[in-house]
């Protein structure tokens, strides 16, 4: 059953050079209890997609299209309605754990304030939940952690606290923006295990943005690859990882590091991703694509259904043609 359906999402941002579309006509779905992975080079619009779902685009950012969540359209809902969804039904873990926790408030305040706001529980029972959450994310000595401030924890611990914070109101959808990028391998493994466990225990749906092949292959059910604000290809995780069709996906997957380094220049795809406001015409990827033909710079690629659960946006890729026949 579908929990989230994004259709034709276009995000316009204000830049110094005028308005520019950071996300273009993006459509995807997430089912109840499903984990969707989103990958793509830096600047491909992953974070902006996430922020438009939770309704927190940067100043002067605008989203159009449709975001259908849990039975209703939320993109057009009022500020008040959005506040009631945020933190309660949709929670988000942000990209950088070093800056996303408040430096001056105690962990207790940060873990309980939205719980008390949404669920109207007492201070004592909110505190009790906070202790349990910290235990769930395996923070040692939860009682003294509650009294501490973010500055007293390492990056890995802060990310766990951020996860605990996101889970406080038992959301239906968790959006995690590169939750493991800043962490070392053992901590990463712990967090992935935790996310898997939460999905099966709470039927939580997760949208996880990552550059990490390990995360994509071990955690996600489905994967969507983004390029220049649009979908390049999407499919079930094993299918997409083992049989990528789109030239960009092929390059990306072969270049994904085992341990992701954010912003790393891809070695097997020449050139660098286009800048916001300067996306090439036609297929945005054509300038870097070794299969590109003249028509690629003219026509916006239409969808090509590779199989039931696998589609891509590249009509002329010889590999794709072969598989379709």
């Amino acid at each position, binding site marked *: 059953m579908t929990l989230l359906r994004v259709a034709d999402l276009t995000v316009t941002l204000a830049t110094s050079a005028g308005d520019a579309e950071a996300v273009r006509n993006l459509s995807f779905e997430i089912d109840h209890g499903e984990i969707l992975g989103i990958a793509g080079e830096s600047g491909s619009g992953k974070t902006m997609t996430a922020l438009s779902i939770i309704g927190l685009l940067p100043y002067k950012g605008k989203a159009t299209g449709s975001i259908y969540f849990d039975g209703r359209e939320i993109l057009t809902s009022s500020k008040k309605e959005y506040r009631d969804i945020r933190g309660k039904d949709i929670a988000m873990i*942000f990209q950088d754990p070093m800056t996303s926790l*408040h430096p001056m408030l105690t962990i207790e305040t940060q873990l309980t304030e939205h719980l008390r706001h949404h669920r109207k529980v007492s201070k004592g029972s909110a505190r009790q939940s906070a202790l349990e959450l910290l235990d769930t994310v395996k923070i040692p000595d939860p009682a003294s952690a509650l009294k501490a401030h973010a500055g007293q924890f390492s990056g890995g611990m802060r990310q766990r606290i951020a996860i605990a914070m996101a889970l406080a109101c038992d959301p239906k959808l968790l959006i995690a923006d590169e939750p493991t990028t800043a962490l070392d391998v053992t901590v990463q493994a712990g967090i992935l295990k935790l996310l898997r466990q939460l999905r099966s225990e709470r039927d939580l749906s997760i949208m996880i943005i990552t550059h990490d092949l390990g995360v994509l292959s071990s955690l996600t059910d489905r994967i969507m690859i983004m390029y220049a604000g649009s979908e390049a290809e999407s499919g079930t995780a094993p299918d997409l990882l083992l049989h990528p069709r789109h030239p960009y996906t092929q390059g990306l997957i072969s270049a994904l590091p085992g341990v992701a380094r954010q912003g790393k220049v891809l070695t097997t795809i020449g050139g660098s991703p286009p800048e916001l406001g300067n996306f090439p015409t036609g297929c945005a990827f054509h300038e870097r694509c070794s299969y590109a033909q003249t028509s690629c710079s003219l026509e916006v690629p239409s969808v090509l259904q590779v199989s039931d659960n696998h589609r891509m946006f590249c009509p002329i890729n010889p590999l794709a043609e072969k598989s379709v026949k």
Partner: protein
Amino acid sequence: MEPVPVRTFSLRKMFTGTGFFPFIVRRLLTAVLLILGITFIAFSVTQLVPGDPVAANLGQSAYSDPEIVAAFEKEFGLDQPVPIQYITYLGKLVQGDLGVSLSSKRPVAEDLREYFPATLEIAMFAVFVALVLGILLGTISAMTRDRLPDQIIRVFSLTGVSMPVFWTAITAFYIFFFVLGWAPGTGRLEPGAEPPPTVTGLFTIDALLNGDLSTSKEALSYLLLPALVLAVYALGVITRFTRASVLEILGNDYVRTARSKGLSEFTVIRRHVLRPALLSIITIAGVAFASLLAGSVLVENVFSWPGLGQYAYRSAVGLDLPGIMGVSMVVATVFILMNLLVDVLYRVIDPQMRDAG
């Protein structure tokens, strides 16, 4: 978690430690050195300016009588060499004796006790108004960024910081006294009215302590206009500064996190934004308070407010060395206390400062 360190008393720790007490001890020691430095500078400056304090304080005929001049110089120690005068001054200062004013012929300490509370009263009122209103307006301005309320507030705060205090004072006095007749007039109370018995020296409070509500109200009505005029500049500064720092904090990731929790905008601003913003606002408030003391000289003269500003003005014109020194000491002490207060508040607000010392 690190283990809690066992606290043992050590004299060395009192000066080098990171706790609150060593911090205060260090600051007070610095304060003493600062005051010493300020006496030296003030003393030197008054010696360097051209002019003869004797001529300034004796009448024409008295000045032409060498005997009177000699007696005057002897009485105030002006016949001694300057370094001796300075050391004598310091020696008395330690005992709390600020010397005798050349112009009022009264002990300077007594003069200050009379004039300083008047200034303190309008200054505190002005700072209070500027802080409360400035933080409120600055926050509204930042929250409505580029929209109408923001634009209106920005015009007003810019006007506030651009108008010379003297001009504001005269204009306000003209409009509210002569034209509208709302302001009661100059001074601290109706002419001839009995001031309330001195406790704090602040008439509004002393009258209240005396159970005299009507005098308190009257004192307040006299206080209002000069205090508001004095507040204008600081209000402009604090409003503009609050807007800038709230905008800066609003751009932080942790504010986005707070919003992602679905908290009300009021909670986000009050709990997540204003607290870090206060850190920088407090610093600027200290600076604004300083400018306010400077402005009080002008405002007090326009409103005939019998405060430190007027006293400073009279001492300066009369080359009244003990008077000038006394005012400098008071102003320096106020500055040092303000700085100390700012630093203490810093530590209260920011846990990182507390942890780091």
